[in-house]
């Protein structure tokens, strides 16, 4: 079975631009979460979606937005990029089961903002 897939793997953008990152969850997983991981730190929660509805939002500015599609894939959008947005963006899907369903991470998208 295919794992969580993310695209693109690497991306270089200029300050002020916008970016769209994509994620396809494991088949059967209806929940998708997005995390930002800066080098040397733990993943920071950005969004969680379940059945196309936002279920949680982390402490990120409104420049960050996301959505989930009927096939449960998801997009993360970041507008007006800042140098500080440079990070590894991880997508994770989880099976139904409520609290404690393990997160299955993709390989991430490495975003560099210059």
């Amino acid at each position, binding site marked *: 079975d295919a794992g969580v897939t993310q695209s693109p793997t690497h991306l270089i953008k200029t300050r002020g631009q916008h970016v769209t990152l994509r994620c396809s969850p494991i088949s059967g997983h209806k929940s998708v979460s997005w995390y930002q991981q800066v080098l040397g730190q*733990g*993943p920071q*929660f950005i969004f969680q979606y379940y059945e196309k509805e936002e279920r*949680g939002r*982390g402490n990120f500015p409104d420049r960050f937005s996301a959505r989930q599609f009927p096939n449960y894939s998801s997009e993360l959008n970041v507008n007006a990029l800042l140098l500080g947005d440079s990070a590894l963006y991880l997508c994770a899907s*989880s099976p139904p089961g409520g609290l*404690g*369903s393990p997160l299955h991470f993709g390989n991430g998208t490495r975003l560099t903002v210059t």
Partner: protein
Amino acid sequence: GQQVMQIPQYQHVQEGEDFTTYCNSSTTLSNIQWYKQRPGGHPVFLIQLVKSGEVKKQKRLTFQFGEAKKNSSLHITATQTTDVGTYFCATGNQFYFGTGTSLTVIP
């Protein structure tokens, strides 16, 4: 929101030595999950603990949840080079990750 702190931030051990990382919170935790991230990789789920005082083992790895559900530990017996990576605890509905402990194993 729930915050978890991990110590130590870094740990270097000789191969064969034991290793322990601790995850601490000032509030009662609903659950604790542990993940391992190899260098250049993504976090991989190891285990979940939900009960007060719970202890679970996976081969050389022992996971423990404190009686007050405010702390947890991961202990590796007789480390191997394959144990290299960063170990994270996470709590809540997978929303909050700890700062991680980076383990280096010296052959």
